[in-house]
């Protein structure tokens, strides 16, 4: 099953099970979604529940907030992370705050979904990542689906949850293949151990998990050590328990993120390691992140601006060698 098919199935199943689930966004109905996530759903559930909106992100999320307050379960799709900036007032001031401002009387059972990250030459205004800003907003749950099975289970959870969820996808993952275990009992807030190992903990999320997995054989070969790869899955709240168990075992942590390094989300994980896990550390925690530049259009420069499997492998091997491995 493809990643986008898993998302489609999650929406389809929740729509079938609960008549209050509605989807709204640009081209989500007749066109089936820019990345075909809502393909075929308008034929099944009609235009009343798959609502094609104008190109006006603030109103998409604003309407979703109103729908959620009035008892529906809206799933708002924003075409790409950069466009979500237009909706930030609704996301941060309203979606994240109403439950708090109403002393818990108003629940917001809603989801805002969007893809982010560097795809292929979409240039500086369509390639950004905003998990760092959204994870810094109390009141929002931020999930990042880097895996097909997780995408299915986490989106279903997000739609049926009474809390507002920002559900982040990645532009290059929509055609990723993977198995879905429909009967699995997945906790969406639990980090996923993608691969077990004993010497280095590599923490990542979204597409970088795949890049890390590509880099790991080279790292292990060069250092003669094994890496444990963790997909964070939930960016807020963070599953520190899983990270703690892994770091206690390995004593070394690397965070790999695609976003610009300065102010990037990974700093939260390395600062946690330094603050809470200091006496378990056998090497300085490091971050492998994108350059502090707007994402270039030129393909060569675009790849130079973000971590790639080769760069990840090289950096971890160097760091390992200079820190006792």
């Amino acid at each position, binding site marked *: 099953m493809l990643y986008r098919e898993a998302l489609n199935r999650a929406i389809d199943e929740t729509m079938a099970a609960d008549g209050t689930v509605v989807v709204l966004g640009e081209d989500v109905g007749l066109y089936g979604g820019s990345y075909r996530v809502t393909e075929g759903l308008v034929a099944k559930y009609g235009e009343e529940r798959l609502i094609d909106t104008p190109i006006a992100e603030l109103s998409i999320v604003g309407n979703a907030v109103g729908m959620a307050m009035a008892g529906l379960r809206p799933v708002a799709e924003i075409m790409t992370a950069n466009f979500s900036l237009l909706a930030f007032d609704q996301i941060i001031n309203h979606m994240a705050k109403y439950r708090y401002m109403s002393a818990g009387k108003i629940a917001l059972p809603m989801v805002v979904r969007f893809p982010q990250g560097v795809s292929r030459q979409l240039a500086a205004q369509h390639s950004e990542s905003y998990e760092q800003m959204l994870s810094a907003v109390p009141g929002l749950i931020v999930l990042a689906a880097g895996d097909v099975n997780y995408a299915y289970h986490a989106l279903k959870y997000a739609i049926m949850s009474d809390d507002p969820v920002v559900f982040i996808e990645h532009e290059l993952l929509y055609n990723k293949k993977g198995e879905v275990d429909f009967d699995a009992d997945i906790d969406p807030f639990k980090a996923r151990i993608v691969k077990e190992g004993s010497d280095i903990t590599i923490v990542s999320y979204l597409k970088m998990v795949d890049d890390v997995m590509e880099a790991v054989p080279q790292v292990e070969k060069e250092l003669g050590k094994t890496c444990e790869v963790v997909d964070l899955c939930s960016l807020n709240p963070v599953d520190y328990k899983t990270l703690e168990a892994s770091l206690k075992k390995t*004593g070394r942590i690397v965070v790999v993120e695609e976003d610009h390094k300065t102010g990037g989300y990974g700093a939260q994980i390395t600062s946690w390691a330094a603050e809470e896990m*200091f*006496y*378990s*550390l*056998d*090497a300085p925690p490091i971050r492998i992140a994108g350059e502090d530049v707007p994402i270039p259009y030129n393909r060569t420069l675009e790849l130079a601006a973000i971590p790639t499997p080769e760069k990840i492998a090289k950096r971890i091997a160097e760091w390992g*060698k*200079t*820190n*006792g491995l």
Partner: protein
Amino acid sequence: MDYKVVMPRLSDSMDEGMLVDWKIRPGDRVKNGDVIAEVESDKAVMEIQTFKSGVVKSLLVDAGTVVPVGTGIAVIDTDAAGAAEAVPAEKAPEAQHPAAETKPAEVKPAPQQAADMPKPAEPPETVTVPSSPDIIDIILGKEISEAIPSSFSGGSASPRAREAAARYGLDIDALQKEGVLPVPAHFDDIKRYYIRRYFTPKALELIARYHLSTDLFESGRKHDEAEVKRYIETHEIPLPEPLDIAKRSMIAMLNEAAKKPVYHMSDTLDARLFERYESKEATVTVWLLRLFAEAMMRHRSFRMTLDTDTVQVWPNADISLAMAEGELLYMPVFRSLNKKSVAEIAQELQQYKSKLKARRLSPDDLTGSTFGISNLGMTGVAQFDAMINKNDCAIAAIGAQAQAGIAVTLTVDHRIVNGYQAALFMQELKALAVDEMFFKEAAK
């Protein structure tokens, strides 16, 4: 970057060493592995090597001086122009020590070993030891990492290393001064030093064999084999023995056998003819194989195996026989026994015995039967029942010869053979056991 060579600790009892002779002068280019000086410790004179390439900046100690372990004795500038391709100093003492050059990490602890080395110009007491602080790692065969990275920004040990050192009661700074811990020190360095320092090799061997952890033993004092043995006994630690492939496959086979719906049927065979016809070669087991084969030819049920939607009826009597080798059980298959004489079967049994000893049974030797025999009669056990082998439909467990005769217990797969057929088969066995004509024929 300046690299300081320190007086290494060359033995447990060494606190200071005398610098006998310098092999380098300031300005010389040295490379990793080059012998740079001779040091006297206890009674032996040993050579020390550098583990950095570069240009000798200064010698801090004059020849003939005694200095404590850990004292800096020379400074090498590793950034000096041409340091990377530094050629050895002109006198190139290592040219006389090919072994030392190819294996700089190796310590030659005993003078007599060194005597075998081709270095006519040196006194026989001279041995080669490295001057690197990683001496323990070298003893343990750990490769020396290229030490401090250029990006290294200070500090002498990782937090985890410090935590471990505190737990083990080790003083990192002192050990680094002595040159037995690298700078910076990591967890592995601490652990390795601690284990090396406080556990005898035999104790470590035992700890490894029993999958124990060195952390189970109090830190700060020496632990020997006897103490680990005591720990194992008082804490009732079992010895974990890994299952080899043969044992694993046996377990899998028995698990399968246990799932079969079976019943048991017991009786005794008259032993008199067996006693009369048995010989050194044609043992009771051989006769039993032949006798069961004869009965199988007359009762097709016992030549059957079960497939998914058919039962297969096999044309000949093929019997698997339980044979033990140490703690292992094998069931080699004797084929077409109905066509073989007792002498031929005896020969085949001998062949299987030697194959078993040499552990040379092939997969072919272990497949193709429909019935099994397990004979424990020679041990004197009166009666027992057996587990069915692989796809066989039944197995006969043979007990000792007693006054009443030979105890036979059939374990039968009910899906293939019903009780009535099994009873007829048993009747046949009993009749054959008293049929002298059969014995005479088979003996030919």
